[in-house]
C-alpha cells in the first residue's frame, strides 16, 4: 500500500534524525493484552503480542491522523463549511487502525455511517475525505456523497440506514468464498443496529453457507442517545450470533484489536465459517454534530475514558515505556500530522463544488445518456454513467 509506505518512510527519516542525535531504540517489544471473552470457542487470540517499532510508529501516526482529521471536521462543521450530517469517530481510532492492521488490503470492509476513520485506513487520503465532507469535486465521491457515503477500493462505505449494510457484507463474503482468493469481509455495525432484524438474517445465511464473514459490533455504549441497557435484552453482543462463535475485545487497545482481528481472519480463512467480534469502544463526540453528547451521559464519564483509556495515549505510553520511541519523536509525528490535516483542510475549503450539470449523473448505468427531470418539468439534467 503506497500510502502506508510513504508515511512509514517519513516516520523513519524523522526517527533517524533523533536516533543519530541521542539513543538507540528497541526493535520490538512484547506486551500483554487483555484476554478476550469467548463464545463457542475453545481458544481465543493470544494474550501477548509483539509490537515492532516500525508498526508502532505507523499505528500511532494513523491513529493521530484519524483523531486530528475528525477534530478538524468538527471545526469545519462549526464554521458551516461542512453541512448536513457528520458523525465523528474520535475515541474509536483503535478500532479502525487495529482492524486494518489485522487484515490485508485485499480483504473487504463495510460499515455504517461513522466511517471517516475506515475510509482513511482503507487507503484514501485526508484530502479526499475532507473534500468529500465539504462537498467539493476533489472528494472521494466527487462531492455527491458527503460524510455518510465514502467509498474506496475494497471499502463498501459509508451507509445511511443502520443494519442494512450487514446482509451486504454477507454477500461480499459469499463473493470472496466463490472467488476462492482467501479473502474475508469485515462487516461492521453498532450497538444500536445490533437490534435490527436483518442482522440476524445475515447471521443465519453466513453460518449456513460458512461464509468468510467477520461480523463486528462496534459497541460504543450508546445508540444515538440510548444506552445499551435500555435498548438490548442482551448486551453481550458477542454472543448474539448464537450459533456463530464470538469474542469480546477491548476496542480501546489497538494491539488487542489487531490480535483479535488476526485470529478472526484466520478462523474465516480456514473455512470454519463466520465469526463475531464485539469491540468495546467509546466515542467522545455525540452521535452526530447536532448532538452535544452530554444529555444522556455525564461529562465525568467522557473525561474518565479520555484519561484512562484513550487509545492513542495507551499506545504512546506503551511505546515510550518500552523504549520503542521517544516522546519527542512522537511529538514530531504530531506536528507532521497537524500540517497534513491543515493542508487538506485548505484544499477542502478552496476546491470548487461539483458542476451543476453533474447533478443527474450515475442514476442508472445508461448508454446513451438520457434526460432526468429536475424540480419541475422545465429543468432537465443530463444523466450520464
Amino acid at each position, binding site marked *: 500500500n503506497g500510502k502506508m509506505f510513504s508515511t512509514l518512510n517519513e516516520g523513519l527519516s524523522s526517527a533517524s534524525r533523533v536516533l543519530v542525535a541521542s539513543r538507540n531504540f528497541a526493535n520490538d517489544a512484547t506486551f500483554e493484552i487483555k484476554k478476550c471473552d469467548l463464545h463457542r470457542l475453545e481458544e481465543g487470540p493470544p494474550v501477548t503480542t509483539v509490537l515492532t517499532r516500525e508498526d508502532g510508529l505507523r499505528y500511532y501516526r494513523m491513529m493521530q491522523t484519524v483523531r486530528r482529521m475528525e477534530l478538524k471536521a468538527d471545526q469545519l462543521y462549526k464554521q458551516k463549511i461542512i453541512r448536513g450530517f457528520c458523525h465523528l469517530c474520535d475515541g474509536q481510532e483503535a478500532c479502525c487502525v487495529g482492524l486494518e492492521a489485522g487484515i490485508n488490503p485485499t480483504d473487504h470492509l463495510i460499515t455504517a455511517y461513522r466511517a471517516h476513520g475506515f475510509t482513511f485506513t482503507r487507503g484514501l487520503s485526508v484530502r479526499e475525505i475532507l473534500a468529500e465532507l465539504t462537498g467539493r469535486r476533489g472528494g472521494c465521491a466527487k462531492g455527491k456523497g458527503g460524510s455518510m457515503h465514502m467509498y474506496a477500493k475494497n471499502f463498501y462505505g459509508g451507509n445511511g440506514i443502520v443494519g442494512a449494510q450487514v446482509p451486504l457484507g454477507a454477500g461480499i463474503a459469499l463473493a470472496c468464498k466463490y472467488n476462492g482468493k482467501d479473502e474475508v469481509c469485515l462487516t461492521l455495525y453498532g450497538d444500536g443496529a445490533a437490534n435490527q432484524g436483518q442482522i440476524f438474517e445475515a447471521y443465519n445465511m453466513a453460518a449456513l453457507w460458512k461464509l468468510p464473514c467477520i461480523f463486528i459490533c462496534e459497541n460504543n455504549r450508546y445508540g444515538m442517545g440510548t444506552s445499551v441497557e435500555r435498548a438490548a435484552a442482551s448486551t453481550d453482543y458477542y454472543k448474539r450470533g448464537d450459533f456463530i462463535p464470538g469474542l469480546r475485545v477491548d476496542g480501546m487497545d489497538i494491539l488487542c484489536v489487531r490480535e483479535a482481528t488476526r485470529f478472526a481472519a484466520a478462523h474465516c480463512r480456514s473455512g470454519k465459517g463466520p465469526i463475531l467480534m464485539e469491540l468495546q469502544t467509546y466515542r467522545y463526540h455525540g452521535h452526530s454534530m447536532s448532538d452535544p453528547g452530554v444529555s444522556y451521559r455525564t461529562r465525568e464519564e467522557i473525561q474518565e475514558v479520555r484519561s484512562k483509556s484513550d487509545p492513542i495515549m495507551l499506545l504512546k505510553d506503551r511505546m515510550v515505556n518500552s523504549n520503542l520511541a521517544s516522546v519527542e519523536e512522537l511529538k514530531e509525528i504530531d506536528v507532521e500530522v497537524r500540517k497534513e490535516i491543515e493542508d487538506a483542510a485548505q484544499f477542502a475549503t478552496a476546491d470548487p463544488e461539483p458542476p451543476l450539470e453533474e447533478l443527474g449523473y450515475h442514476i442508472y448505468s445508461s448508454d446513451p445518456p438520457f434526460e432526468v427531470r429536475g*424540480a419541475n418539468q422545465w429543468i432537465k439534467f443530463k444523466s450520464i454513467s
Partner: protein
Amino acid sequence: MAAFAATAGGLLRLRAAGSEGQWRRLRGAGLLRGLLQPESATGVAAQRRHVAHFTFQPDPEPREYGQTQKMNLFQAITSALDNSLAKDPTAVIFGEDVAFGGVFRCTVGLRDKYGKDRVFNTPLCEQGIVGFGIGIAVTGATAIAEIQFADYIFPAFDQIVNEAAKYRYRSGDLFNCGSLTIRAPWGCVGHGALYHSQSPEAFFAHCPGIKVVVPRSPFQAKGLLLSCIEDKNPCIFFEPKILYRAAVEQVPVEPYNVPLSQAEVIQEGSDVTLVAWGTQVHVIREVAAMAQEKLGVSCEVIDLRTILPWDVDTVCKV
C-alpha cells in the same frame, strides 16, 4: 411533496407561453422562486446555498374551537397527542427516542404526564415497531407509533402493506388494526440528503386498507392527527419536518377534528387548478399569486390533505 397543473377542461393554458423559453435558460435546482428570476440573478443562484424556498403562510385564527394558543408544528403535534392520551386511556405512544421528547420534540412532557407504561422507547427496529403496533391495535388499544424519519419506514413496508392494510379484509371484519396510527417526519429540509429527506407517500398511495395524510400547517396537523388516531383504519401521518419550527399559527388548545379524505380549496380560481400537499402548498400559494400578478392567470389552489383515499370530487369539480 408535488404539484401538478390541470384545468377543469383538461387543457393546460398558460398565457405568455413565450416565457417558457426563458425558464428553460435558467439554471437552478431549487424550487420555483429560484426559477422565475431573470437569468443574470440565477448565474449566481447556482452556487448560492438553497435552504428554504418558501414562506410559511399561516391561516387566519380559527374561532369555532375555543381558546387558541400560538404553536409551531411540533407543539401542535404534542398537543394532539396530549389530547389523545387524556381522552383515551388505552392510547400508547412508542418509537425510537420518544421518551425524552423525541428528536423533533413532538413528545416532550408526555412521559412525565402519562407514565412510562404509556410513552416508551423501542429499540432500533422499524419492522418490529410497526408489527408490534399492529398487535396492540388488534387487541383494541390505540397505538401511536413513531418512525423516526420517513426514510426509515421501508423495513416496515411489509408490515404496513401486507399486515396492517389487509387485516380487516382477510379476517372478514373479525379483526382489524384500525386503532394504529404511524407518524413520521417527512420531506426535504435542506441538509438531509439521501436518508433524512424522503417523501415516500407515493409508495403507500396505492395500497387499499390504509390512509395516508400530510398536513400543511400546525392547525391542520393537530386536527388531522386527531382524526387519524380516532379513525377506525390504520393511518400513516407524515409531518413535514421543515415546518416543525418554521410554521407558527394560532391553534386551539382543546381537541378538534379536521376531516380525512376531504381536500381544501384554499383559493378559488378559474383558469388552472394547482393541487399540492405538505410544504409544497406554501410554494404553490406563492406561485398562484405570481401567476395572477405576472401572467393574469387565475389559479385554484387545493390542499389535498389526505393522499389516500383522496378527494376526487373536490379536485375534479368544475
